[in-house]
């Protein structure tokens, strides 16, 4: 297929390193008529809150928004699993005309006694935003009736982008957080909140185990495998570390403002970033013991995984990767992680990356690499081919696209099947990259260059 033309309005969202000095256009609305890989406000709020495992998540709207988000994200939990059920008010035409408040109230009256959740989230969808149901009032009434928090999530799909949904979710989480417990002072032992890990494939558990080993207590993870009780006490911490900054930066800001909890950006993707993040935590606490334990952990874990990483690196050296993921933090880490494997990133993009993140990517990639925001499939195809990518890292919708081009693929989104965080994750990642690039199935693809 000939390369599809690129819309003039899209040109500003695509830059090539080293060609000419320019800034990328990002954090803007998608062009109508594009086959965008982006989602909506509701989607953003839903993915952030979904891992709160003991909450009842009630979607207020017609059925679709509930159906498409029923247990889609492999956020693992250690016990409570109410969140893996799908609850919806299933609004009908009658409700659209006369308002959905009554039905929402009735649904809450039915569900709360039946499931006895400690907490309910009520998600607003597009149509609820248009008909103007007063969610706040209905939720407040239910809350006082049942004595549990019932919180509206202002996530009508059209009021912004997925990032607006992250903010809506953070607003709700912040409402749940109570003032520090009496007697809690910030100079106590190291105790942090870990923000922006949704425990996909159990990743937050790996990081928890590292933090335990270095003598740092994890107060609550937002929101992987979290519970209402833990979230309430989030103010009893003396540091917030943020991994997925796109989704959690806002909450960290609010916690800093309200309770003076400082925050630190981290990334546990790849060996270097994991080590550097642990060291940064130790530096923050100015704690000798923690610092020593960090160095010990790095030595032990590196020794354990390096032989394997080295083995993969030998086989992957010189391969070219394309990356298209949701947010900027992951994109940045992936550039470094591929470098650890001897691979070069030749195309990189995100759905919702921020300007400073794109600038960072620009400094990290090699000359000629293409950087693009909110790309559509035609652009992904064109640049993967032009740049000679051997591998694409992406999400659900990118996978078959890569395969059709005869390009190997790694899911770094909801459909990942093993943890990609920390040292263990770095080995999993290398193994997956190797197994997809080295698969004999590519030999069966006629007329396409054979990998590995």
């Amino acid at each position, binding site marked *: 297929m000939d390369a599809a033309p690129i819309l003039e309005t899209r040109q500003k969202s695509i830059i090539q390193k080293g060609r000419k000095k320019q800034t990328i256009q990002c954090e803007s609305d998608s062009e109508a008529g594009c086959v*965008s890989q982006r989602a909506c406000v509701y989607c953003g709020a839903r993915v952030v809150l979904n891992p709160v495992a003991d909450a009842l998540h009630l979607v207020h709207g017609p059925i679709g928004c509930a159906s498409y988000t029923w247990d889609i994200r492999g956020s693992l939990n250690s016990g409570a699993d109410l969140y893996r059920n799908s609850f919806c008010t299933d609004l009908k035409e009658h409700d659209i005309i006369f308002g959905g408040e009554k039905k929402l109230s009735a649904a809450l009256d039915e569900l709360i006694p039946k499931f006895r959740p400690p907490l309910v989230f009520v998600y607003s969808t597009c149509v609820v935003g248009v008909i103007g149901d007063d969610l706040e009032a209905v939720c407040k009434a239910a809350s006082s009736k049942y004595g549990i928090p019932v919180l509206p999530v202002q996530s009508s799909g059209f009021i912004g982008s997925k990032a607006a949904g992250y903010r809506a979710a953070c607003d709700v989480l912040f409402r749940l957080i109570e003032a520090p417990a009496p007697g809690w002072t910030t100079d106590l032992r190291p105790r942090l909140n870990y923000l922006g890990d949704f425990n996909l494939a159990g990743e937050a558990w790996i990081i928890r185990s590292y933090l335990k080993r270095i003598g740092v207590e994890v107060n609550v993870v937002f929101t992987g495998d979290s519970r209402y009780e833990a979230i309430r006490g989030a103010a009893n911490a003396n540091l917030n570390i943020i991994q997925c900054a796109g989704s959690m930066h806002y909450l960290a800001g609010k916690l800093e403002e309200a309770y003076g909890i400082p925050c630190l950006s981290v990334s546990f993707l790849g060996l270097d970033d994991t080590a550097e993040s642990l060291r940064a935590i130790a530096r923050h606490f100015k704690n000798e013991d923690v610092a020593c334990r960090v160095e010990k952990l790095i030595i032990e874990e590196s020794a354990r995984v390096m032989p394997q990483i080295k083995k993969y690196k030998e086989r992957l050296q010189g391969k070219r990767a394309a990356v298209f993921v949701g947010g900027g933090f992951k994109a940045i880490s992936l550039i470094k992680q591929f470098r650890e494997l001897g691979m070069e990133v030749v195309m990189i993009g995100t759905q919702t990356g921020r300007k400073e993140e794109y600038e960072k990517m620009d400094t990290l990639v090699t000359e000629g690499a293409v950087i693009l925001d909110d790309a559509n499939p035609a652009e992904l195809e064109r640049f993967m081919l032009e740049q000679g990518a051997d591998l694409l890292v992406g999400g659900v919708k990118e996978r078959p696209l890569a395969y059709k081009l005869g390009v190997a693929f790694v899911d770094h989104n909801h459909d990942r099947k093993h943890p990609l965080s920390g040292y263990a994750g770095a080995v999993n990642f290398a193994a997956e990259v190797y197994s997809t690039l080295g698969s004999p199935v590519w030999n069966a693809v006629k007329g396409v260059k054979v990998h590995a």
Partner: protein
Amino acid sequence: MLDATPKKIVERTSGGMINPAKTCQPIGAMYAALGIHRCLPHSHGSQGCCSYHRMHLTRHFRDPVMASTSSFTEGASVFGGGANLKTAIKNVFEIYDPDVMAVHTTCLSETIGDDLPTIIKQAEMPEGKVVFHANTPSYQGSHITGFSNMTKAMVTYFSESTLLEKEDRVNLIPGFVNPGDMREIKRIAAMMEIPCIMFPDTSGVLDSPMTGSFQMYPEGGVTLPELKKTGDSKLSLALGRFASSDAAGTLEKKCKVPAITLRTPIGIKATDAFVMALRGAFAMEVPRELEEERGQLVDIMTDTHFHFHGKKVAIFGDPDIVAAMVEFSLSLGMQPVHVLTGTPGGALGSGMAGFEEEIKELLSAAGLNGNVKSAGDLFTLHQWIKNEPVDLLIGNTYGKFIARAEDVPFVRLGFPILDRSVHSYLPVVGYHGAMRLIEMISGALLDRQDRDAADEDFELVM
């Protein structure tokens, strides 16, 4: 344990859903539109809708699913989405160059009240290109309703009666089934040497072969000239009344093409009815090869009937598939004791009885009396199963939660199937499809028997 469902059934009156057995209209419309050659479906609503539908379809078919969106923002929701749609139409033809753009609405654009025909009329589009639409409010019906509405729109916009005498050809409206099923239905018509136009036809689109290049518009799909010619066909067969009868009925009214509504041809009876309808209308002999396939199926049914006889089964999913599967289960001697669909009410425009009446009639003819529900959810189904356990569960991927909690063998059938592959390439319709279903059901039951057997009961020959 992954089981939040209490055994005790308390009547629910709020009208809400717990663990739905349906999804919304637009995804059905998007799937139907993909069955037109060189067509780009367009979602007139927020970005999330389009993204979710593409994701869900991609997970089921494991193929790229292309569709564009009007990308509604707050402004569009206040001032109407007309400007967005016009921009979208211009951009879509400029950048993606389809022959046809199939616009469907969403709950948002329906509630705002965008007047699609007028907006489309006013939009700029290149010579020879076509934009058509279907109204698919998410707050009515289900994904099956959306599929039906988009299929009907193909008739409303494109079918024409141009000849005094109808041509010797059948319109086959397959309903919301997999491309593998559509291929099989066409194969049967071809074996009988009866020319056909299938619409929509996603074979060759969502089961397209690997060629080493990405094709935005794969080879398959019904073409616009073919859609036009449906008005000159001698007969329409609507396979599955919920998904297909509205289009067939509209074509009958618009172009005087007689319509017959049949069950989705799953199982021996429904396939017989399909073959007989073709034979009757076209006075063609049933070819020896097809007789042979049927004979093989009957042979298999007799060889294995003791595996199935008296087994209690729960069946859920989309109404057309479920009705046909209930009929086939009865042919095999199984007892469908719980039957449920998420899709509400009767079939649009069919003037026929609702889902519940249809299933109850099938069951009572077999002397059975089971739980039957339309507009139901999987919470209800799970409660039924807790109160009256079954030997087998048949339905889409979401059944796996129930199958695990109740430790019941599970056969995946319908849409969506998100956790297994290849299903969309192979048929469940026709005599071959029935053989495949028997293999799946019998495999599930016997694997279970092997797993549970004590050493002394473990048998080599079964």
